[in-house]
């Protein structure tokens, strides 16, 4: 019986990827908390994870710069947030408190995924070394 790492790790590697991307989106919101006209972005985690697992990053390779760019632009589940207050005076829709909490939550969930992966790796190692 061959060990399939892909099967053993399950959804967690993709989950890590999506969480890292989400951390980036939230970091961008917080960095632009004082930028006039900036609209906060959020991530549809379900859609992003589904896309990461199905690996639908299809597209044609461009070997010449004159080739048309026919990549399918899938939007990675990123969209604009619906702001809590209609107008903040300068068109900025970032709520720093909300974003900070989301970032914290995302970082904890990232570490949870890492723990799961660690457990899987430990199990595999035990299987390989025979528990020695």
């Amino acid at each position, binding site marked *: 019986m061959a060990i399939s790492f892909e099967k053993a790790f399950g959804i967690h590697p993709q989950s890590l990827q999506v969480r890292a991307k989400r*951390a980036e989106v939230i970091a961008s919101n917080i960095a632009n908390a004082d930028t006039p006209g900036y609209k906060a972005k959020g991530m549809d985690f379900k859609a992003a994870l589904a896309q990461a697992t199905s690996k639908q990053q299809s597209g044609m390779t461009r070997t010449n710069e004159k080739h048309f760019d026919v990549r399918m632009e899938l939007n990675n589940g990123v969209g604009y947030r619906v702001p809590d207050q209609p107008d903040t005076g300068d068109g900025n829709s970032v709520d720093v408190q909300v974003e900070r909490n989301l970032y914290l939550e995302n970082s904890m969930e990232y570490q949870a995924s890492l723990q799961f992966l660690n457990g899987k790796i430990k199990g595999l190692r035990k299987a390989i070394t025979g528990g020695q």
Partner: protein
Amino acid sequence: MSLFNVFSISGTGMSAQSVRLNTTASNIANADSVSSSVDQTYRARHPVFAAEMQKAAAGQNESVGVQVLGVVESNKPLNVEYAPDHPMADGEGYIYKPNVNVIEEMTNMISASRSYQTNVQLAESAKNMLNKTLTLGQR
């Protein structure tokens, strides 16, 4: 790896906020700089923030940092005071004081320093996440 981008994004946030702190310090330091003509009077200056949209357009990146487009001087009228005894008074006995609102600057300073701290914390926790990832699978 998008976690590394968190460092650059929060880095842009930190540098933008430090420009803001810098202008605030300059404004407060010069709040009482008196001069004898309109042209030579210090005017409150504030940075203009903008999202780094041209970088977002170049890559298919949704997350963008912040940049300082420039520093603009306030157009508010200067405080003109009649003080003929003042050594800097002009021919008609007026002195010109900057249009700095010290209270506004203080709140600006608090806001900038809090934003700076938030960006530092972002980078810190991204560092922790990366550290944990690097030690993945080690005993």
